[in-house]
């Protein structure tokens, strides 16, 4: 940690999403804030920020792109310059309308349900390969031996990167993802290694175009203009950063739940056709992603005097557990039929990779349940969750039976 975060004493007026207790178990914290006199918490940290916890507030903010800008979607002490809007550093996730629409539109066909369907067989084969490598061991780390690898391989395959580079590529990406809290120099080094790798791949695709996502992006146009080398590089970096630890977290959290809830595990083994329904419930209850917005002008939001340039966190995971939004919201009901969850966001920024992520999560669970029908948590105290805006198990010791 570079910055000093004193422990939180009062979540209502001094919250900090990087506090250890928030990473380990945020649910009671959200419940406490949600049921208090003001369901929107405040902190003076990060130069001033708000934390809504009700579904109604989270969705109202997600829809109000005039007052809540995506200029930065990761909350830190530093705000990007105002001139960064409306494109932001990583379009479309950091973009506001009207720029956002074109930058998003150009990505969507590559991540449509039809395009994703074509990747299912190779994803399953890769999951089986990872599983075969684990057989014979008593305890595995499902976070690093399994969950982490799947989204890295899938996106590397889509981008047309050499599969022989798999391990190296994963190291670059994981270093960047895990390095958010590293000192700036170390962070620059890991970013530099990743960018250099991407540069070589993009140049190779420029010289030898093929049928993959990198060539697709190099050919893509917004308003009749090609994206250019720079934009393609940044888009690929965004896909890596938005697509990998999110999906890794969702797969890991789902395995955590099933490893610690034998009844649900047995039910899915007996009724594999229930897996797609269970996937939605696990996405709801363990939604990994919280986004951030910056307030564009002073506004009274449901009694909160929000000031221009205040941060607002958008905890979709807290919204999904709001009892006003859903009955038994704090329980995991593996066959829940009515589930309007917003794990992939709401409104114009709906996760562009949601169809891909759902496929990966379902296939990863199906392959695992087929191979290890009796797995359990090996050491409940050995589980470690990442904190901050993407929450998932980073260490997950599981006895595979």
């Amino acid at each position, binding site marked *: 940690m570079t910055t000093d975060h004193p422990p939180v004493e009062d979540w209502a007026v001094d919250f900090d999403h990087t506090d250890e207790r928030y990473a380990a178990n945020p649910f009671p914290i959200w419940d406490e804030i949600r049921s208090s006199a003001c369901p929107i918490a405040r902190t003076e940290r990060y130069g001033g920020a708000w934390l809504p916890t009700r579904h109604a507030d989270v969705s109202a903010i997600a829809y109000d792109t005039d007052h809540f800008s995506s200029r930065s979607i990761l909350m830190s002490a530093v705000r990007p310059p105002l001139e960064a809007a409306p494109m932001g550093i990583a379009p479309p996730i950091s973009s506001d309308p009207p720029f956002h629409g074109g930058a998003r539109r150009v990505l969507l*066909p590559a991540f*449509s*349900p039809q395009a994703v369907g074509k990747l299912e067989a190779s994803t399953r084969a890769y999951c089986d390969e990872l599983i075969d490598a684990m057989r014979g061991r008593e305890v595995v780390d499902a976070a690093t031996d399994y969950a982490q690898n799947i989204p890295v391989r899938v996106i590397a395959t889509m981008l047309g990167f050499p599969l022989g580079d798999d391990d190296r590529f994963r190291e670059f990406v994981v270093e960047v993802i895990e390095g958010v809290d590293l000192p700036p120099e170390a962070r620059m080094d890991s970013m530099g290694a990743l960018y250099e790798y991407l540069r070589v791949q993009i140049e190779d695709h420029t010289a030898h175009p093929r049928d993959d996502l990198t060539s697709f992006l190099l050919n893509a146009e917004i308003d009749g203009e090609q994206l250019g080398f720079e934009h393609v590089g940044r888009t690929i970096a965004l896909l890596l950063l938005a697509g990998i630890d999110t999906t890794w977290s969702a797969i890991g959290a789902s395995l955590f739940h099933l490893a610690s809830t034998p009844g649900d595990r047995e039910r899915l083994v007996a009724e594999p056709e229930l897996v797609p329904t269970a996937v939605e419930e696990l996405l709801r209850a363990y939604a990994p992603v919280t986004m951030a917005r910056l307030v564009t002008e002073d506004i009274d939001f449901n009694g909160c005097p929000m000031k221009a340039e205040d941060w607002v966190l958008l905890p979709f995971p807290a919204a999904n557990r709001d009892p006003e939004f859903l009955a038994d919201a704090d329980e995991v009901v593996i066959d829940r039929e*009515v589930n*309007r*969850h917003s794990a992939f966001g709401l*409104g114009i920024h*709906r996760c562009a990779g*949601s*169809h891909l992520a759902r496929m990966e999560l379902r296939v990863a669970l199906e392959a695992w349940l087929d191979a290890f029908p009796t797995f359990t948590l090996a050491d409940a105290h050995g589980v470690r969750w990442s904190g901050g805006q993407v929450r998932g198990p980073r260490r997950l010791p599981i006895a595979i039976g």
Partner: protein
Amino acid sequence: MISLRVKIDEASCEGHGRCYALAPALFEPDEIGNASVLGDGIVPAGEEDRARRAVANCPEHAITIDAST
């Protein structure tokens, strides 16, 4: 005879895809993942439950279901 009809508000649909996953006989994705209703949206006999489930699971509240005569 009274039957049900589903409709999608295109302006609200953001392509979460819950509807065409739950009721593929009633909805289909376009090339960016947004949904449209198949045919005239009349829900055939036997599809009523799936239609209601699609309505109840759309995160954007973009689908409506009405009786049509």
